[in-house]
C-alpha cells in the first residue's frame, strides 16, 4: 500500500470517527426536574405543534417599534420577564396603581392601572404620579398554569373560609372580578353578581390565561390586539399589533407547560421538612394538592397536581399592604402564590432569590419571616423552630 493510500484511509477514518462520535459530543441535557420549561407529558402530536408555535411566540418573538412595541412599555418580549418560564428578575418589575379600594375601577386618568416606565427612542415613558400608592410585581413563573386553569371554581371555593368558621385564623376569599368582554365562561365557573373568580396574578385579578395574556401584551409591551385595541400611550384604539392566532398560540403554550417536578422527594430531610410545613400550618393557604377535572386537553385531565396554593386571597398584614389593589381584593390581601418551582427560582432570577410579590425577600427564610396577618402564627411558629427543623423545612421548600 502506498503512503498516499494510507494517508487517504486515515483521513477517511478520522472523518467517520468524528461523525459517528457526534452524539457523545453534545452537552448532556439537564434533568427534567431541573427545568421549568417543556410541555406537559401526554400531548398529542398536533398539540405539540401548537405548543411549539406558542413557545416561539413566547420565548423568541421580540417586539420592536416597527412591530408594535410601545411606544411606552415595560418589556419587549414575554421571555424578557419570564426567562426559562421561571420567576422574573427586578429588571422587569411591574408597577400597578390607580385603585386603592376594592371593587372600584382603576383611575386611568392618572395613568393606571400600570406604569409603563420605558419608552421607545424619541418617546417619554410614563412617570408615577406623586402621592399615589402603588404595588410592584416581579414576574411570576408561568409553568403549570394550565392545570390551575383546569380547576373548577368549586375546587377553589372548597378552601375558602371568609368568616373563619373553623377558627384557625385563616380565612381565604376569592377575588371576584369583572371579566373582560372576550371572556367566555365555562360550566364550571360560578359567577356572583356577574363577577368571576380571578385566579392568576399577584392579586388574582385575571380570570383566565387569555385575560392574563392579552393584558400582558397590552400593558407590559404596549402591543394592541383585537381583544384589547387600546394603546396604553394614547388611550385610543389602534390597529391590532399582534394577531389573534399568536395570542391563541401563547395561551395554548401556557396551558400546556408542564407542572414543576419536585426534586429529592425521597430525601429524609425533605420528608421531615414537609412534615414541619404541615405542622406549622403553612398548608392552610399553601394547599399541597388538587386533582384536575376532565379538561378539553386530555393531558391536563384527572391529574393530581402539587401547586401548594389555594388561589385565594389572604390578609398578609400591614407589612405587605402597599395601599393599592385590584378587583375585590383589599390592599393587604394577596393571592397565595404557588410554591411549585420555588427551588428553581434562582435559575431564572440570575442566581439569586427575589421573592414575595415585589422581590423584596432575598431568601426563602426572609420570605417566610415577612409573612403577617393570617400567616403571622405560622411565621412565628417557623421562627420558633429548632435549627434542624428550620433547615429541613427550607430544604423541602427548595425541593419544590
Amino acid at each position: 500500500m502506498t503512503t498516499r493510500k494510507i494517508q487517504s484511509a486515515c483521513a477517511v477514518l478520522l472523518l467517520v470517527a468524528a461523525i459517528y462520535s457526534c452524539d457523545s459530543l453534545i452537552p448532556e441535557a439537564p434533568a427534567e426536574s431541573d427545568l421549568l420549561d417543556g410541555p406537559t407529558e401526554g400531548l398529542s402530536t398536533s398539540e405539540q405543534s401548537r405548543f411549539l408555535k406558542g413557545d416561539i411566540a413566547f420565548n423568541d418573538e421580540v417586539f420592536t417599534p416597527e412591530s408594535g412595541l410601545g411606544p411606552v412599555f415595560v418589556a419587549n418580549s414575554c421571555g424578557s420577564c419570564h426567562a426559562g418560564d421561571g420567576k422574573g428578575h427586578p429588571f422587569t418589575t411591574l408597577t400597578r396603581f390607580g385603585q386603592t379600594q376594592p371593587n372600584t375601577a382603576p383611575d386611568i386618568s392618572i395613568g393606571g392601572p400600570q406604569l409603563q416606565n420605558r419608552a421607545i427612542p424619541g418617546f417619554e415613558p410614563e412617570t408615577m404620579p406623586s402621592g399615589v400608592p402603588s404595588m410592584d410585581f416581579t414576574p411570576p413563573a408561568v409553568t403549570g398554569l394550565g392545570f390551575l386553569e383546569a380547576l373548577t371554581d368549586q375546587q377553589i371555593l372548597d378552601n375558602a373560609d371568609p368568616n373563619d368558621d373553623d377558627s384557625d385564623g385563616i380565612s381565604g376569599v376569592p377575588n371576584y372580578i369583572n371579566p373582560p368582554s372576550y371572556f367566555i365562561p365555562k360550566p364550571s365557573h360560578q359567577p356572583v353578581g356577574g363577577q368571576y373568580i380571578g385566579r392568576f396574578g399577584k392579586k388574582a385579578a385575571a380570570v383566565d390565561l387569555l385575560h392574563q395574556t392579552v393584558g400582558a401584551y397590552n400593558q407590559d409591551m404596549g402591543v394592541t390586539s383585537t381583544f384589547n385595541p387600546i394603546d396604553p400611550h394614547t388611550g385610543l384604539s389602534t390597529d391590532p399589533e399582534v394577531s389573534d392566532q399568536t395570542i391563541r398560540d401563547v395561551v395554548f403554550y401556557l396551558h400546556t407547560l408542564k407542572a414543576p417536578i419536585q426534586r429529592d422527594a425521597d430525601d429524609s430531610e425533605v420528608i421531615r421538612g414537609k412534615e414541619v410545613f404541615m405542622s406549622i400550618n403553612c398548608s392552610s393557604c399553601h394547599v399541597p394538592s388538587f386533582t384536575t377535572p376532565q379538561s378539553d386537553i386530555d393531558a391536563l385531565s384527572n391529574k393530581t397536581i402539587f401547586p401548594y396554593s389555594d388561589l385565594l386571597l389572604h390578609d398578609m398584614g400591614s407589612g405587605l399592604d402597599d395601599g393599592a389593589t385590584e378587583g375585590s381584593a383589599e390592599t393587604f390581601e394577596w393571592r397565595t402564590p404557588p410554591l411549585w418551582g420555588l427551588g428553581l427560582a434562582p435559575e431564572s432570577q440570575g442566581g439569586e432569590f427575589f421573592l414575595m410579590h415585589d422581590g423584596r425577600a432575598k431568601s426563602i427564610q426572609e420570605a417566610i419571616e415577612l409573612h403577617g396577618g393570617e400567616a403571622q402564627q405560622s411565621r412565628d411558629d417557623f421562627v420558633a423552630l429548632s435549627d434542624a427543623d428550620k433547615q429541613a423545612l427550607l430544604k423541602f421548600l427548595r425541593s419544590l
Partner: protein
Amino acid sequence: MKKLIITLFIGLLSQQLIAQVDQSLLKDDRSDSLENAMNMDALSNRVYATSSSPVSIGGYLEADYKYIGEDGLTDGHSFRIPRVTLFITSSISSRIKFMSEFEFEEGGEEIAIEFAAMDVNFHPLLNLRGGVVVNPIGAFNQNHDGPKWEFVDRPIAMTQMLPATWSNVGFGLYGKMYQKDWAFGYEAYLTNGFDNSIVTNTKNRTFLPASKDNKERFEESSNGEPLFTGKIAVRNQNIGELGLSYMCGIYNTHEDDGLILDKPRRLDVFAVDFNTELPLSDTYIVGEWAWVFVDVPNTFTQQYGEKQSGGFLDIVQPVIDKPMFGFDDAVFNVALRLESVDWNVGTFNETGGNIGDEIWAVVPGISFRPTYQTVFRLNYRYQEQTDILGNPPAKTSGIEIGFATYF
C-alpha cells in the same frame, strides 16, 4: 467634518489634474509582495482564477457540515453553503483599478455587494478609494475570506458584535510606506452608517449587524451624518502587525422632514488587531478585540446595552509540511480559537447586579491545506452563553467539518 470633506476633494482634484497632464509619469507600485502585505491589502491581494486579461475573475466557496447540540437537544445533521463569493477586478489604467466582491449567502437567499470600489493611485501614501468600501474596523472585516481561516465559523465577536462584513457607500484615502523591516499603513473613509435598528431589533440586544438588513444604506444615509472609519497599522517583518482602528458617527434618525424626532445619538467603536508568526515554530497567531459604545436612551430597556466588548485569538500550528495525498505543498495544521463576547457590559439599574448576555467559546481543530488556496477544516466547538440575567449558561458543543477554496 466639513473641513475634512473639503480637504479630501481638493486632494482628489489636484491629483486628477496631474494625472490628466502626464499619465506616463504614474507608475503602478501598488502591488506588494506577500512579505510586505498587511491586513489592509486583503481586498487587493486576492487570488484570481484569471489574471492575465484586464478583467480578473475569482472568488471563493465555503461549504460545511455541522452536528451541534445545546443542552442535550440537537437539530441533527446539517449541511450548508454559507457563502459563495465572486470577485471581479479590472485594471482601468496603470493606476486606476476597479475591484468588487459579490457574495451569495445561504444558497443565494441573500446576494450582497460587499465591495465595489474604484482605486486611484496617486502615490503609495495617497490612494483614493470610492464606491462600496469595506470599513476598516478591526482586521477581520477586511480580511474575511473563508479560505484564509482554519475554522468553519467566523469569529462571533466580529460578526455578531462588530458587523463583519460591514461595507458601505463612501470614499476615503489609504496609503502605505516602508522603512527597512517596517511598514506603516493608514486608511480613512467617510461612508453611510448605521440606523435605529442597532438598538431596536429582534435580537434583543444592541446589535450593530442589524443595520446590514437596511439595503437603503446603499442609496442614502439614514440620518445625513457620515460614518468615519479610520485605521492605522504598523508591521515589522520579524515581529508582526499591530492595527488600531476607530469608527464613529451618529447612528439614529434624529430628524426627518425638518422635525426633531430624537437627539443625535453616537456610536463609537475601537478595535485592536494583531498577527504574528513565531520564527522558530512557525506558529501563526492572530487576534482582535473590539469595544463598542452606543448612546442608548436611558428611558429605553437595558436589554440594549451601552457597552460591548469581545474578540478572538487564533493559534495555528503547522505540524506536517510536506507532500501529502499527492499535493506537493500540502500542510497539516492544528489550531485553537478562543473567543468571547459581552454584548451588554454594565449593571442593572434595579439591583446593581451584573448584566449578562455573554458568550465564550473554545474551538480546537485541525486543518489540511492541499494548496495555499484551499483548506479542509475539522473543528470541535464548545461554548457557553448566558442570558441577560446571568442565569445558568446554555451549553453548546459539536463538530463542524468544512472546506473553503478560492477559485
